[in-house]
C-alpha cells in the first residue's frame, strides 16, 4: 500500500477529488485519478456508477440499431413478393438483429443496472474489483465493434470500392448471415464468408467481457455487503444479479468452446462440425443451447428482479413471499441448465430424451408461476400508485405471462414439432423479450433514472410511451401466432400471395412502427429528463431499498459512512419501522474514505481485442498482413495486463463533510 496518500488531518474536507494532486503509480507514471479533463475521467474511470451509465448509453444505442434492423425486416415483409432488400441482405439483417438485441442491447442494459445498483443496494463503496469492471466495459465495446465491423466492409463493397482483382475479389458477404444461433454446417467455410468470422470473434470477446463482469459481481455480492446486510436481507434485484452472474460463469464456457471449435474448423481444417471428417453438425446445436437456454434466463431474471423492486414500492407493501421469490429465481436458474434440448425436439433425440426435456421444461413453469402469483399477491390489498415505473411493471406481468403461456405450448414436444421454425416461435420469444424484458427495463429506467441523474421526469409523456409500446407490441406480435399456425416459416425474405398471410403481415408491420414510435417517445422522455428535469431529491418514490438512502446522483464514494443494516427493506424500515430496525452508521475512524485509483490499463488491455479479433477474422478471409495485426492486438492485451499488474492498485482518501 505504498502508494496510498498520507492521511491528512481529518478536519480538512476533501470531498472533491479534483482538489487532490495526482500520484505516481509503481510504474512511475502519473495516475489519471484527479485529472480535470472530463474525457480522461470517463475513459479511465473505475467508478461503478460511471461504468454503469456507459453500459446503459451504449446499450440504448444498440437497442436503436437493432430496432432499425427490425423495422427494415418488417417493411420487407409488409407485402408478398416485396423486393425492398435482397435475400442475402435480409439474412444479414435478421442475424444482426438477433445478435445485437441479445448481446449488445439487453445484456449490457442489464449490466448497466447491475453496475449502478448492486453496490448501492448492498451498501458498498464499489465493486470488489473496480479495474476488472472497467476491463469488462471496454471488452464489451471491443466485441461490439468487431461484430459490427462487417457493416463497414459491406458498405464499401456496395459502393463498389473494392478492386475486382485484389484479395477481396468475389467477396460480397461481410456481415454475419447465418442466424444468431449459427447452426452448423452453414457456418462452414464453404457456405459463409468473413461475416461468420467477425461473428465468432465478436461473440468470443463479448464472452470474455461477460465472464469477467459476472465473476466480479458474485464476489461483490458475497463479500462486499455492508454489516447486517445478510443474504436474506438483500434486495431481490441483487439476488437476481447473483443468480444471473452464476449462470454466466457456468453457461458461457460451452459457447466459448463451441466457438473455438468452429474457428478451428474454419481456420485449421479440423472436423468438429464437418461431416466429411466424421464430425456431427448436431454437436453445435447441443453446445450452443447448453449455453443458449441459460442465456434466456440471463436475459429475463434481471427483469424479474426489477419488477420485484418496483411492485412493492408502488403498492406500499413488502414483496409477498420474499424468500420464495428468491428461491424461485434460483430454481429457474438451476433448471435452466437442464432444458436445452427443447430447442431441438425436431432433430430426433429419441423418445426418452424428448420426454425428459419436455417434462423439465414444463417444470420451469412452476417457479415462474410462483413468481407471478407473488407479484399479484404483492398488489393485493396494497395502496397502488400508477406512477410511470408501476405502469410498465404491471405491463410486464401481463405481457410476460402471455409469452410464458406460448412457452408452455412449446414444451409439449408434439405441439413443438408443428411450431418449430414458424412465426409462432417468433411470437413467443418476442412476447418474452419485448413484453417481458423490454417493459421491465423501461420500468427500471423510469424507476432509477432520477437516482442516476438526480432529476425527475417531466410531464406525462410516460403514459404515451406505455400506450404506444404495449399496443404496438401486441399488434406486431399477436398476429404472428396465427401466421405461425398458418405455416409461415421463419427466416424467409419474402412469401407468395394466396396463403392467407398478407393481412397478418401488413398488420404486424404497422404494429412494429407503432412500437418504434413508442421507443422514440421513450428516448425523447429520457432526454427531457436528463436535460431539464427538476431535482429529484434522495427518495422521490418513497422507496424501500438502500440505494434511495444516499443522494441523487450518489456521491463518488456512495455512502459517507458505512451503513449498518437491521432489516430487509432497509430504507422502508428506517423511515416507517420501529426504532430497532433503523439504519445506523459506522463510526468515522478519521481515515477518510478509501477510493480505488483510476487506470488506463484495463481499457488498453481490452481494446487490444479489436485488432486481435479483426486481424484473425480478416486473416481467415485471406487479406494479407492481417496476422501481424492480430499479433499486435495480442501484444497490446499482454502489455495492458502486465502494466496493470505492475502499476499496483493505488488508492486515495476522501474526507466528506459530515451532514448528519
Amino acid at each position, binding site marked *: 500500500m*505504498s502508494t496510498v496518500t498520507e492521511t491528512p488531518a481529518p478536519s480538512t474536507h476533501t470531498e472533491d477529488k479534483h482538489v487532490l494532486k495526482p500520484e505516481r503509480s509503481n510504474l512511475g507514471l502519473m495516475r489519471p485519478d484527479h485529472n480535470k479533463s472530463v474525457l480522461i475521467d470517463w475513459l479511465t474511470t473505475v467508478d461503478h456508477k460511471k461504468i454503469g451509465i456507459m453500459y446503459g448509453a451504449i446499450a440504448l444505442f444498440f437497442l436503436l440499431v437493432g430496432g432499425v434492423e427490425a423495422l427494415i425486416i418488417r417493411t420487407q415483409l409488409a407485402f408478398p413478393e416485396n423486393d425492398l432488400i435482397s435475400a442475402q441482405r435480409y439474412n444479414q439483417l435478421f442475424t444482426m438483429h438477433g445478435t445485437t438485441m441479445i448481446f449488445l442491447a439487453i445484456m449490457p442494459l442489464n449490466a448497466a443496472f447491475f453496475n449502478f445498483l448492486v453496490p448501492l443496494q448492498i451498501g*458498498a463503496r464499489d465493486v470488489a*474489483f473496480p479495474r476488472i469492471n472497467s476491463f469488462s466495459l471496454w471488452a464489451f465495446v471491443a466485441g461490439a465493434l468487431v461484430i459490427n465491423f462487417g457493416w463497414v466492409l459491406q458498405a464499401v463493397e456496395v459502393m463498389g470500392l473494392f478492386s475486382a482483382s485484389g484479395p477481396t475479389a468475389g467477396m460480397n458477404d461481410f456481415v454475419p448471415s447465418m442466424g444468431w444461433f449459427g447452426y452448423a454446417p452453414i457456418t462452414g467455410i464453404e457456405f459463409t464468408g468473413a461475416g461468420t468470422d467477425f461473428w465468432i470473434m465478436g461473440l468470443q470477446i463479448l464472452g470474455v467481457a461477460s465472464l469477467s463482469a459476472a*465473476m466480479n459481481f458474485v464476489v461483490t455480492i458475497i463479500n462486499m455487503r455492508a*454489516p447486517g446486510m445478510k443474504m436474506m436481507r438483500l434486495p431481490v434485484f441483487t439476488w437476481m444479479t447473483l443468480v444471473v452472474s452464476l449462470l454466466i460463469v457456468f453457461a458461457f464456457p460451452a459457447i466459448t468452446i463451441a466457438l473455438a471449435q468452429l474457428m*478451428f474448423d474454419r481456420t485449421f*481444417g479440423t472436423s468438429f462440425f464437418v461431416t466429411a471428417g466424421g464430425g456431427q453438425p448436431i454437436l453445435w446445436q447441443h453446445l450452443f443451447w447448453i449455453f443458449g437456454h441459460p442465456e434466456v434466463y440471463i436475459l429475463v431474471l434481471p427483469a424479474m428482479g426489477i419488477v420485484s423492486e418496483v411492485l412493492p414500492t408502488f403498492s406500499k407493501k413488502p414483496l409477498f413471499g420474499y424468500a420464495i421469490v428468491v428461491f424461485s429465481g434460483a430454481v429457474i436458474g438451476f433448471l435452466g441448465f437442464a432444458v436445452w434440448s427443447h430447442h431441438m425436439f425436431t432433430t430426433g433425440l429419441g423418445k426418452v430424451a424428448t420426454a425428459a426435456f419436455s417434462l423439465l421444461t414444463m417444470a420451469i413453469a412452476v417457479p415462474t408461476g410462483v413468481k407471478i402469483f407473488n407479484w399479484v399477491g404483492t398488489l393485493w390489498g396494497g395502496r397502488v400508485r400508477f406512477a410511470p415505473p408501476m405502469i410498465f411493471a404491471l405491463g410486464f406481468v401481463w405481457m410476460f405471462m402471455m409469452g410464458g403461456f406460448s412457452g408452455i405450448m412449446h414444451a409439449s414436444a408434439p405441439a413443438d414439432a408443428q411450431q418449430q421454425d414458424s412465426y409462432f416461435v417468433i411470437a413467443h420469444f418476442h412476447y418474452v423479450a419485448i413484453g417481458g424484458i423490454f417493459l421491465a427495463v423501461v420500468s427500471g429506467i423510469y424507476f432509477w433514472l432520477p437516482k442516476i441523474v438526480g432529476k425527475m421526469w417531466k410531464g406525462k409523456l410516460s403514459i404515451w410511451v406505455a400506450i404506444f409500446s404495449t399496443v404496438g407490441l401486441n399488434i406486431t406480435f399477436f398476429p404472428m401466432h396465427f401466421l405461425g399456425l398458418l405455416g409461415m416459416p421463419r427466416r424467409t425474405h419474402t412469401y407468395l400471395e394466396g396463403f392467407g398471410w398478407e393481412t397478418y403481415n401488413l398488420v404486424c408491420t404497422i404494429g412494429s412502427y407503432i412500437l418504434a414510435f413508442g421507443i422514440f417517445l421513450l428516448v425523447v422522455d429520457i432526454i427531457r429528463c436528463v436535460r431539464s428535469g427538476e431535482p429529484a431529491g434522495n427518495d422521490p418514490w418513497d422507496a424501500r431499498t438502500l440505494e434511495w438512502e444516499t443522494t441523487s446522483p450518489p456521491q463518488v464514494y456512495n455512502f459517507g459512512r458505512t451503513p449498518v443494516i437491521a432489516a430487509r427493506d432497509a430504507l422502508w424500515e428506517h423511515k416507517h419501522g420501529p426504532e430497532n430496525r433503523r439504519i445506523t452508521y459506522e463510526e468515522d*475512524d478519521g481515515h477518510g474514505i478509501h477510493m480505488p485509483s483510476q487506470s488506463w490499463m484495463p481499457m488498453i488491455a481490452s481494446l487490444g481485442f479489436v485488432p486481435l479479433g479483426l486481424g484473425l477474422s480478416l486473416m481467415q478471409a485471406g487479406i494479407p498482413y492481417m496476422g501481424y495485426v492480430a499479433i499486435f492486438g495480442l501484444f497490446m492485451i499482454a502489455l495492458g495486463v502486465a502494466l496493470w499488474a505492475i502499476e499496483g492498485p493505488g488508492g486515495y482518501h476522501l474526507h466528506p463533510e459530515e451532514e448528519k
Partner: protein
Amino acid sequence: MSDSATHHEDGHKSLIIDNKKLLMWLFLGSDCMFFGTLISTHLIYRKLNPEEFDPTSMFSLELTSFSTFILLMSSFLMALAVSAMHKGQIKSFRRNTVGVIFFGLIFLACQVYEFTEFAHLGLTLESGTFGSTFYLMTGTHGVHVAIGVFWLICMLFYSYTGKMDAHESAVDVEVAGLYWHFVDIVWIIIFTVVYLIEFIGKV
C-alpha cells in the same frame, strides 16, 4: 494481480473468503465447464467414430505416465511454496517455486515432444475427429500450464523486489497455487479418460 478495493477502512470485517481467492474459485468453476465441454466432445466422438483411429498404437504410456508424475510432483512443490509464503519464509518459497517452474517446463517439453511424434505418425488437426478433439483439448491444457509457468516466473521475479509481505502476497501465491492444482487435476482426468482408458483389455 492485486485489484482489491477491500482495505481495512472499508468496514467489511467479516470476510469468510478473500476476494481474490473467491474470484479464482469462480474462475475454476468456469474452467471446469471449459474442460468438461472439451473432454465430453472428445469422448462423444471417440464413441461415434471408434474405427477412425487406434490411439494405442501411438500413445506411449511410459512417457505420459512420467509427465503425469512430474506434474503431480510440481503440485506438491506448489503446496510447499504456498505454505512457505504463509510462514513468511521467502527463501523456501523461491526454492519451491523454481521447482514448480522447472517441473512445469518438463511437462510442457514432454507435450511438445508428444505432439511432434504424433504428427509424424499421421495424427493431425485435419486427420479426423480424433485429431481435432485430442489436439484442441490437450492443447488448451498445455496453454493453461504455460500460463501458470509464466505466472510463477513473474511471482519469482516479484519476490526479489522486496515488496512481498506475508499477508497480502501469501494470498496471491495461494491463488496461483489454486490455479496450479486445478490444472494438475484436469490433467489427471485427461490422462485417465483419454490415455489409460484406451488400453483397457489391450495390455
